[in-house]
């Protein structure tokens, strides 16, 4: 059965866990393995953490939006913020690239490794939307990065 849900929440660090549990509960309507669900949780944590730290620069009053869609056995997630945006998406997607010296630059690497597809849309000053998808029953995620 196709399904859709939308979650909106404040840009608070406590909501990273809330977001990943919510997405995993929605995703469990598909026949994902426990391992798949763990991978989805990591990908969601990375995207939401990025929206909070980078997009809203840790201001607690931003709104993070997650649109979850199930269609033809595939989960699609759109995780968006109306924060700072990314000037150079290609650069941002490079492994180990981070604008924050305390961070590892592995967020996009994890999203890419754990989901089947990853697409990043961003406009400086307007915000960022990360679109990721994963099919239930697909072999471990891979590669396809576009921007």
């Amino acid at each position, binding site marked *: 059965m196709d399904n859709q849900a939308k979650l909106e929440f404040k840009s608070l660090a406590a909501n*990273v866990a809330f977001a990943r549990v919510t997405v995993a509960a929605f995703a469990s309507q598909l026949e994902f393995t426990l*391992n798949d669900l763990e991978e989805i949780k990591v990908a969601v944590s*990375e995207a939401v*953490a990025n929206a909070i*730290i980078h997009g809203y620069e840790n201001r607690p009053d931003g709104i993070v939006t997650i649109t979850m869609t199930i269609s033809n056995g595939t989960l699609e997630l759109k995780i968006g913020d109306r924060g700072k945006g990314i000037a150079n998406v290609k650069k941002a997607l490079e492994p180990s690239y981070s604008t924050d010296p305390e961070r590892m630059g592995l967020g996009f*690497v994890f999203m890419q490794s754990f989901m089947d597809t990853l697409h990043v849309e961003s406009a400086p000053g307007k915000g960022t939307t990360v679109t990721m998808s994963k099919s239930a029953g697909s072999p471990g995620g891979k590669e396809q990065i576009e921007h």
Partner: protein
Amino acid sequence: MDLDLDLEYRQGTLFVRPRGELDLSVTDRFRGILEENLAKNSVNHLVFNLSRVSFIDSSGLGVILGRYKKLARQGGRVSLVGAQPQVRRILVLSGLLTVMPEYRSEEEAVARAG
């Protein structure tokens, strides 16, 4: 979120035993507590016992890697112990296991410390 953390200092080794989920909600406190304990003890070996960590993402890993960089500069070492499968996959994928040794137990980590 609260950080549930057990710490023990013994003869130059600081054992760190976090519990629960290591994500953005705990990184500041996690880093702060570690820095404080590294400052007040003379630590040449930092052992992260991850057996009770059920979730970790790059925010959590960043705290571990940051402490590793600091200790490595001073000639100290960092070991990882007891990661559960889902946490271990993240350690592998991040490359952390290529710079830090992994042991099955705290005892093994201490015994093998060069």
